[in-house]
């Protein structure tokens, strides 16, 4: 047998006791603990024995065991820290300008960091309220299909959910939720739109949505039962009890079987009502597709594995299950995977089928967070550079102080600590200021986009406060690190020697490179904003191939449009109206497949259903043929189609002559159609898509309606109010939803404009921080060179000479930054960003130069004003003071 390994109690715990314990007690105390330790090693093992030893070491920290001297030590340290605080405070007060630059620079940059921290913490607080949150998984479906819809989807099929429940072991609960239950809920005369999901009773076992009234087990069992949130119930029933009452949603009557607490804000599943999934099964009884394996579009499946379940085993069971099911499918192969609940909001980007708004909830990809974090870090770093730069620049003035400190016995560590303490104090002061800025910026950030309002609240939580303080201290350490190292190396002998013998100037390269980095970053930010803005304006002003000016698009929802159309027609301000199925040019799409003579050759075409007024209202250019004239009443009666040039090109109809294509027959979605007109190519999709084949057919009353009204009005608000009044006559429940075409286009590119706003804001911060830093440097340089200037002046140098002399160094640095920044930005856009937009305009020189000019101008003003002041100073006054 191997000899028993010897175990020793943790040395640091022993030292800890020896540190705090009264000398008289140390021996028997540690002895006792050692004896118990030896005994515990034998009875319960070394690891737990050590743990007990450590716990006891802390437990013995009592008033009678603790020696008085350690309080003295703590007190001494306290005094030292107090002295650091005092000297730092004096320094801050003495150099008001530098402190102002440092504190405000750090505050401005830190506010960005605070916003980001708040944003990230908010995102990470999603779904944390579920009791079993760490065990819940969503089933994702990866589709490999012959159609072009491949990808990983957040949804899964109804059948997959059922099969997992029946066949997969190691799973405690499965719950299937079906997308979007929405409609107008009527209680008596009270009609309100309501939104939610179809769900199974197990939803309450997997998730924690506490039920206040009703039976959790049975509430969602029977068809036509509905569970409302508290707010929804109050909205519909007022103060009356809702439980047991009925609600009519559209034409179906539901019974309220439960009231749940309102869904917390930070939940990726958000609803006003849950309807029993069995209802959906009843309503879709005739639909074979409803429960088919490949119909993975409309349901979400969540699983709750048993505690200590082997996730690998569950995944392999899912693989087997999918393999079996895929055998029966010709076109679609689906792979099931487990996605942890906490990775839904911040995690891999999943596709979601159309028609599920809010279903997958908000999502932010980690890449975005990293990019934002990186940008914020750059801005913060820039402020830290200011601090480092200015502190080291002031070295000569402080070097005597450090020398003195060292001469009377301060060690390196203490000097280092002093400078770090000073930096941390400044950054804590900056935190106060930046928190105020945070409060100002918070609403701006939240209102930047509607998605933002739905995603984050940015309310202050204790965790956030802690994160802020930690962040601030971290910044302080980062900013103070280089000065601390630099000053700790000062030797007391040199400190009292002549100024020129000091090796301060070798740090000039460091300071110079910091300035260059700062200005490069600033220039990059600014030029990106300028170039992005120009591109954005170009997109908005882009000739789509049709006119959108003064056209108001009214979504009539499911209402009959005739009344509204007639009322609009009677208004003098409305010069024309038309009806269509969708609004094009903003990213909406309605597709179909088209065939010409060869029945095997089909092409995906984009379609829209439009009435006879649509083309003239939007100024579409007909190259040949005519507009629609008839008004078919049903989809079956539609037999005419107007196509664009791309269709002709694709099928080679009529050679190069559009006229020859008229009266040709094509098959659109299986129906024979005659080409009656050919229109010029236009942008059906967004500008980042290539123009493809498009076919317009007649709008029929069976279709959804978007009414487009061309408005000629001097008093737009009054006209809009008039139209809204007309809307109220046909629909009292739903709000009037209309938008000008141009605004809709703007809206379609909102992501783009949001991006520009954010980067523009960062550019603004970067330029102000860099400018402040530069200002500090200029003030410092001119101050230290005042005597030199005085001498030069007496020798006959002109003001112009002096300005050139003083600003030359800075101008060189700025030129170096420009030489790095401008090509970098140019390559970034031409190489990475713009290739995504086939119809972009190239980057022009003026956009690149405008940023440079702005930065140069600001720098010039700062350098100029200070150097001018110095150059004009009276040499007599300067030189006499020696």
């Amino acid at each position, binding site marked *: 047998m191997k000899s028993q390994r010897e175990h020793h109690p943790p040395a640091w715990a022993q030292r800890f006791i020896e540190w705090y314990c009264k000398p008289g007690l140390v021996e*028997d105390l540690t*002895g*006792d603990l050692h*004896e118990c330790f030896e005994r515990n090693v034998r009875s319960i093992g070394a690891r737990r024995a050590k743990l007990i030893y450590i716990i006891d070491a802390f*437990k*013995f920290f*009592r008033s*009678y*065991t603790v020696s008085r001297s350690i309080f003295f030590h703590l007190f001494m340290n306290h005094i030292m820290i107090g002295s650091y605080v005092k000297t730092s405070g004096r320094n801050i007060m003495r150099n008001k300008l530098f402190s102002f630059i440092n504190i405000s620079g750090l505050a401005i940059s830190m506010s960005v960091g605070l916003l980001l921290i708040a944003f990230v913490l908010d995102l990470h607080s999603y779904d944390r309220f579920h009791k079993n949150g760490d065990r819940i998984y969503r089933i994702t479906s990866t589709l490999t299909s012959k159609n072009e819809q491949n990808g990983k989807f957040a949804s899964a099929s109804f059948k997959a959910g059922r099969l997992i429940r029946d066949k997969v072991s190691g799973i405690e609960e499965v719950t299937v939720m079906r997308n979007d239950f929405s409609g107008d809920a009527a209680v008596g005369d009270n009609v309100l739109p309501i939104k939610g999901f179809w769900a199974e009773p197990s939803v309450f076992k997997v998730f924690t949505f506490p039920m206040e009234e009703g039976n959790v087990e049975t509430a969602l069992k029977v068809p036509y039962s509905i569970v409302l949130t508290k707010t929804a119930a109050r909205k519909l029933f007022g103060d009356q009890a809702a439980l047991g009452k009925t609600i009519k949603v559209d034409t179906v009557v539901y019974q309220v079987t439960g009231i749940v607490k309102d869904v917390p804000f930070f939940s990726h599943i958000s609803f006003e009502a849950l309807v029993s999934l069995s209802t959906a099964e009843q309503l879709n009884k005739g639909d074979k597709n409803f429960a088919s394996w490949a119909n993975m579009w409309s349901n979400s499946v969540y699983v709750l594995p048993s505690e200590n379940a082997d996730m690998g085993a569950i995944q392999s069971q899912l693989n087997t299950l999918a393999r079996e099911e895929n055998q029966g499918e010709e076109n679609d192969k689906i792979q099931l995977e487990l996605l942890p609940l906490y990775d839904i909001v911040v995690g891999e980007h999943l596709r979601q089928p159309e028609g599920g708004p809010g279903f997958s909830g908000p999502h932010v990809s980690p890449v975005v967070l990293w990019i934002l974090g990186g940008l914020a870090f750059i801005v913060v770093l820039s402020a830290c550079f200011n601090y480092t730069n200015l502190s080291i620049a002031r070295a000569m003035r402080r070097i005597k102080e450090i020398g003195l400190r060292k001469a009377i016995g301060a060690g390196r560590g203490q000097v280092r600590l002093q400078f770090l303490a000073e930096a941390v104090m400044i950054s804590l002061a900056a935190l106060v200021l930046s928190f105020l800025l945070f409060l100002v910026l918070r609403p701006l950030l939240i209102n930047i986009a509607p998605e933002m309002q739905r995603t984050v609240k940015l309310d202050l939580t204790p965790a956030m406060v802690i994160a802020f303080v930690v962040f601030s201290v971290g910044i302080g350490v980062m900013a103070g690190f280089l000065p601390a190292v630099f000053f700790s190396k000062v030797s007391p002998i040199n400190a009292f020697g002549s100024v020129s013998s000091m090796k301060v100037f070798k740090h000039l390269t460091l300071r110079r490179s910091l300035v260059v980095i700062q200005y490069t970053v600033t220039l990059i930010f600014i030029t990106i904003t300028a170039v992005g803005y120009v591109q954005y304006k170009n997109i908005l002003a882009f000739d789509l191939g049709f006119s959108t000016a003064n056209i108001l698009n009214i979504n009539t929802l499911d209402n009959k449009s005739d009344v509204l159309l007639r009322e609009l027609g009677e208004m003098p301000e409305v010069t024309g109206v038309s009806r269509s199925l969708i609004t094009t040019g903003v990213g909406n799409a309605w597709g179909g497949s088209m065939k010409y003579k060869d029945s095997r050759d089909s092409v995906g075409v984009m379609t829209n259903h439009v009435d006879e007024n649509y083309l003239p209202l939007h100024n579409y250019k007909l190259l040949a043929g005519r507009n629609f004239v008839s008004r078919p009443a049903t989809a079956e009666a539609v037999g005419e189609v107007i196509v664009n040039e791309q269709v002709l090109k694709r099928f080679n109809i009529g050679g190069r002559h559009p006229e020859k294509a008229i009266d040709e027959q094509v098959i659109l979605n299986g129906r024979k159609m005659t080409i009656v007109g050919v229109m010029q190519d236009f942008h059906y999709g967004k500008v980042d898509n290539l123009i493809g084949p498009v076919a317009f057919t007649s709008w029929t009353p069976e279709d959804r309606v978007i009414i487009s009204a061309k408005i000629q009005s001097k008093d737009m608000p009054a006209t809009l109010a008039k139209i809204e009044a007309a809307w109220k006559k046909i629909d009292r429940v739903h709000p009037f939803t209309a938008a000008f075409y141009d605004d809709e286009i703007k809206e379609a590119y909102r992501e783009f404009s949001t991006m520009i706003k954010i980067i523009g804001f960062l550019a603004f911060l970067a330029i102000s921080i860099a400018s402040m830093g530069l200002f500090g440097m200029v003030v410092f340089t001119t101050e230290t060179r005042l005597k030199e200037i005085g001498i030069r002046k007496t020798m006959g140098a002109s003001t112009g000479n002096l300005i050139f002399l003083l600003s030359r160094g800075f101008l060189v640095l700025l030129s170096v930054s420009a030489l790095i920044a401008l090509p970098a930005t140019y390559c970034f856009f031409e190489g990475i960003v713009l290739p995504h937009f086939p119809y972009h305009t190239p980057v022009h020189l003026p956009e690149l130069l405008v940023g440079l000019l702005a930065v140069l101008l600001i720098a010039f003003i700062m350098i100029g004003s200070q150097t001018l002041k110095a150059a004009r100073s009276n040499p007599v006054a300067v030189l006499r003071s020696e």
Partner: protein
Amino acid sequence: MKGTNLGEFEELVLLTVAALTDEAYSVAICDELSDHTGRTVKLGVVHAVLNRLEEKGLLKSELGEATMARGGKRKRFYQLTMQGKSALMNAKAMRDQLWARIPSLVWGKM
């Protein structure tokens, strides 16, 4: 009067020290207490009580020989002082007096 009154646990510790005679040091006292009272007694608590009793003058202590089991550290042995002994006697006498006052009838009725 404060200082002469013994707490319940203090009394137990004092008794244990008396019972263990020459072997009365913290770990042994701790074990003995655990065995006889059936409750888990923490070393830290015993230490604190021993310390307090020593301050009150009911116990005195001296260091013994070093042993390997204690990592070369000496044990601190405790002994009752005269005050300690009388405090225990007083406590016992007080209890006996009270016991004697209970009429046997009271037990019968229960």
